[in-house]
């Protein structure tokens, strides 16, 4: 796994995608920080963190689009799949590489908190809660993006597909509200990423939400592994 992790992390910076992702992430979070906390002179950073939810919808698919699709197109998957490593460590290696790049972006939001701390009291527990929430949300999105990437050979399709999938997971909550059948509506709203994420931005650290994102990540990673496994049998 460490070989894959190292190569993937390097590849993000060899291929510009890492830079593009981080630039866009910093720009997005910076603008949000400017128009919320700075504009209103508030030490409350929940505006930025809840806004980042939407930025991730677009950015994460860029991070994950080439993870597995490009391997297949360049036939380098033949090297990886015939190497003496398990599919699980292959997929996890790629997952954690994306997580490293993503975490660099997330850590940047701590800088904003430090900036605020010069002008007023920052509720550090809330900030840490937010960062943890953002990391968990990102992990689930990355897992979704990798699943989509494993289904195609085309990076563009992987990116758009990843965007569509994450958007769908976001919209589930909105759809749930208009469904008249109560039990369906209830199930869907429980599955909504937005309803699970928003409490973090209010400073509410609900363990069930943590568990939700971890389970979602594990499930999508598992499905990615199954897709690779199935390709071998087809």
């Amino acid at each position: 796994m460490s070989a894959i992790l190292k190569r993937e992390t390097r590849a993000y910076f060899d291929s510009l995608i890492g830079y593009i992702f981080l630039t866009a992430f910093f720009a997005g979070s910076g603008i949000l920080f400017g128009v919320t906390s700075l504009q209103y002179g508030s030490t409350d950073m929940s505006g930025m963190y809840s806004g980042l939810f939407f930025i991730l919808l677009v950015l994460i698919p860029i991070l994950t689009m080439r993870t597995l699709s490009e391997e297949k197109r360049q036939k380098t998957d033949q090297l990886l799949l015939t190497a003496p490593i398990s599919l699980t460590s292959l997929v996890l290696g790629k997952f954690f590489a994306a997580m490293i790049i993503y975490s660099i972006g997330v850590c940047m939001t701590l800088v904003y908190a430090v900036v605020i701390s010069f002008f007023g009291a920052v509720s550090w527990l809330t900030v840490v809660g937010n960062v943890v929430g953002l990391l968990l949300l990102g992990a689930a999105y990355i897992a979704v993006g990798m699943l989509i990437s494993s289904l195609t050979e085309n990076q563009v399709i992987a990116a758009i597909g990843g965007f569509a999938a994450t958007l769908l997971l976001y919209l589930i909550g909105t759809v749930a509200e208009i469904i008249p059948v109560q039990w369906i509506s209830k199930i869907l709203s429980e599955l909504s990423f937005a309803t699970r994420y928003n409490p973090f931005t209010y400073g509410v650290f609900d363990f069930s939400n943590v568990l939700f994102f971890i389970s979602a990540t594990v499930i999508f990673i598992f499905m990615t592994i199954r897709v690779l496994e199935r390709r071998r049998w087809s």
Partner: protein
Amino acid sequence: MIEVRNLVKTYGDKHAVAGISFTANDGEILGFLGPNGAGKSTTMNILTGYLSSTSGEAYINGHDILEDPIAAKKEIGYLPEFPPLYLDMTVREYLCFVYELRGCRLPRNTHLKEICELVKMDNVIDRRINNLSKGYKQRVGLAQALVGNPNVLILDEPTVGLDPKQIIEIRTLIKKLGKNHTVILSSHILSEVQAVCDRIVVINQGKIVADDTADNLSRELTADHKLIARIDGPKDEVIKLVQTIPGVVSIVADMQRERGVWEYNIEAVEGTDIRRELNRRLMSRNWYILGLRSSELSLEDIFLKLTMGESVNEFLADKADDLAEHYEEAEK
């Protein structure tokens, strides 16, 4: 050692591999020969664990590739049809990655240096793979298969895209490697298989149609009692004379090769050697044999015969007609 038993791979209702069994022993170079789409690459992909077989078993040094894939894959170095290269890495970075990926324990720098010297690419080691020529890319692919010194090498058309000098170099290298590795290589180039391999497995439409040494294969299908002779002498009289030799079944004048020199197809009773008698009688009339060979099938003919089945005779007849026409035109 590689053991394959009854390997089947189906795509829908199409049999890509339809029940292949063979064994490759230690220190043996086994050649897979077959037309494009015969199932060579599919078989290799199954052996290396890239694809799963629909049924059947494959053992690499005793490890089942399906039951114990990681142990089996440790034994294999694989060069697929398209070398699996990361184009944005340098050769050194790429080989280091493969080294780590395969979990090698050998001293890294000396090991990689040895490999680069072996495949003769130590001069490009710090260049980006993207900027290398096709021949060098192929070598990087081969180098990648050698990382970790695996016992079994599976090479899918290793000399494709190389120039003649490189082809000879790579063949020499494979022969050298074959001394202490089990090597399977596939090719649709007959001379290559003939030059490099100890044993040849001919595959067609997913089935093995022949499995033998190159010499045996041609011997099996050779007709020693059929001769092709080029004789300088008056055609009709030569035919009459030769027909009187005991054992001769038939003689047919094929075509005039030079002025007054014809080529004859002579068939004798199986097991008789008429060459000396033929020589003696022609000499007594002051006619000369300018060429004499048994109508031995080349590997090419064997290949066609095996892979085309009955239709091969028509094919060869067509070829002969074409040739005859060509000569007629040339004479005009």
